[in-house]
């Protein structure tokens, strides 16, 4: 007969009190249910995308979405912003867009005889950069710099961007003509790259009915920005054992040196592997995922759950891989199946 204690009845070591941390997380993550319920009023399905949005929000990252038009990308971030009671801006990237159109500029006030700051749409909490690859490199660069540094300099003054600050950029995978692909170094600044697909049959039926009825979404603010900021601090406290740290590093290093991990068949398929930013992002995203699952510690399942989204835009594939129709997804899948789980 097996007589096991339940996990919550287990004794935990004193140095890091996992039990207390678990309890704290149970409390601090309670808002997630309310938030999901509220967003669910306007968005049907797309749970994966919403979960990834929350991971990026909780781990101070940004998200790059790839999917065909009409998958509720804009609605998702707009609803999230409304439910958190924060400011939302949408920037439609076009070839004639200028950095000042995003960041803002100094405008001469004739009556006062001085220059005044006119802040751009980046001065919001949630930014939707729609079709980011349609704007030239200088505009992309301006946005990505602001995303990284979380401040913007106009004239002589540097303005800090208000937290929570999340950029969700979208890319359309179908129309590639007249686009400026994001360089690898800039794409690396997105914590996650999420691929979204069409909703399920029943979900789409519900979406259709909801839109035909024309009922307003009626999303109300259910939590404050402060709740998110507090949750962010708690996410940082989520315990990550050194075995998990090693597991993350093994995965990242396997993308760089597959032969060392006895994955010889990937040697000629990978042109470059994940950067140190990938390790940081994977650790943070794993913690946020554990938080969303109401756990005070990270388990290998958390790492595997976020691995694809963290790595898919950080692995370069060779011409040989392209010729063999092998993409990043397959490479990540192989790595996850070959690196030993602690």
């Amino acid at each position, binding site marked *: 007969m*097996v007589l*096991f204690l339940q996990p919550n009845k*287990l*004794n*935990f070591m004193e140095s890091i009190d*996992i039990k207390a941390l678990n309890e704290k997380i149970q409390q601090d993550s309670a808002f997630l249910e309310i938030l999901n319920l509220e967003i669910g009023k306007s968005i049907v399905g797309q749970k994966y995308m919403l979960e990834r949005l929350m991971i990026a929000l909780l781990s101070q990252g940004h998200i790059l979405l790839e999917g065909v038009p009409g998958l509720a990308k804009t609605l998702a971030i707009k609803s999230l912003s409304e439910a958190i009671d924060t400011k939302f801006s949408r920037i439609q990237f076009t070839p004639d867009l200028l950095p000042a159109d995003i960041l803002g500029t100094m405008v001469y006030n004739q009556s006062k005889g001085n220059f005044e700051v006119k802040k751009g749409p980046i001065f919001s909490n949630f930014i939707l950069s729609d079709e980011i690859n349609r704007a030239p490199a200088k505009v992309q660069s301006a946005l990505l710099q602001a995303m990284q540094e979380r401040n913007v300099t106009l004239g002589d003054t540097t303005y800090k961007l208000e937290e929570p600050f999340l950029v969700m950029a979208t890319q359309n995978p179908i129309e590639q003509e007249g686009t400026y692909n994001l360089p690898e170094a800039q794409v690396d600044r997105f914590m996650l790259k999420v691929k979204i697909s069409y909703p399920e049959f029943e979900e789409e039926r519900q979406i259709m009915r909801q839109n035909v009825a024309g009922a307003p979404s009626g999303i109300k603010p259910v939590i404050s920005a402060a709740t998110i900021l507090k949750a962010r601090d708690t996410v940082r406290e989520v315990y990550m054992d050194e075995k998990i740290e090693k597991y993350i590093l093994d995965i990242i290093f396997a993308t760089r040196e597959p032969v060392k991990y006895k994955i010889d068949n990937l040697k000629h398929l990978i042109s470059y592997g994940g950067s140190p930013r990938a390790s940081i992002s994977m650790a943070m995203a794993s913690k946020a995922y554990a938080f969303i699952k109401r756990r005070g510690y990270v*388990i290998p399942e958390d790492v595997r759950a976020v691995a694809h989204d963290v790595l898919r835009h950080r692995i370069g594939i060779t011409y040989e891989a392209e010729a063999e129709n092998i993409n990043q997804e397959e490479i990540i899948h192989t790595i996850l199946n070959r690196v030993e*789980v602690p």
Partner: protein
Amino acid sequence: MSFTVKLRFEKRWQHVYCYLRLIFKFSNFQIATFLICFLLIPFTSGAQTATASTKEKEYQIGDWIPVDLFVSAASNNQVAFPNLKDSISPIIEVANYNPVDTVKKGGQNEYHQLVNLIVFDTGQIMLPRFQFLVNSNGKLDTIVSESILVHVAGVKIDTTKDIKPIKEPLKIPLTFKEILPFLIGTIILALIAALIAWYIIERKRKNQPVDEKYLLPPHVWALKELDKLQRDKLWQTGAVKNYYSRLTDIARTYIELRYHISAMERTTDELMSAMHKGMMKQSLKKDLNEVLVMSDFVKFAKAQPDFIENENSMRIIKEFIDKTKQLEEEKKPLTQKD
């Protein structure tokens, strides 16, 4: 066409006939005797003739000119044909030549050799005389053919037509005989390389220690490892995390060897999903899952189970191995690759 001083036998017999008629016409015995002796000299002393002939008189520059070298000598004589080199003169080259062909005719031997010449000049060209050595009972004699006059024409140029580009050199197809040495060389080299590679691999393989887990049946190896773990008294000395890490590693490796599931690369949930119903009793799977979940708590969440849990975990894993071990009749040989 012949350009020679060749004595044809047919003509000779005509001459003999004329002579005889003349002799008997004169009916002077002395003169007749003299003439008959004179006539018979060539036959008794073994006549040797050498000719060189071409079929045509007109050739184009660069064409092969086939020259037929002919020698007629008594069958007891030895004939040496000219030793031909690459070129005969600065403008005449020897393209190739056939071996000497010998035909016996009565007491005479007729020797033929076809020599192909190339002339690199135009106009009236005199092909030189060919020298032959004849060994007649130790007496060396030299006979020569007549020189041959041929007309070598240049390439006709039609000035009314466009200038054409220079022709590419002719491509001579490679023969199997030419390739054969390289082919044999390549095969020999490949065989040597394969032999060296085989020797290195074999040596490496022999030197590599084979892991015990591939030599023993999975359950024997796993139980042996569990006994070792128990003897190490890890949890008793506070190394609980290490104890559970080793315990689950043994369990996972056993599953990998026993069921050929890559258990070490799977998380607990994934492993449980991979172990389908037919593999084992559900109660055993449930117990194993509880140990693995407990181990995850210890490994990743700093959980500290009490001694009962620790002992219980060991007992469950042992029980799992014992109840799922492969029976003798089910066994099939395992390799390191498996």
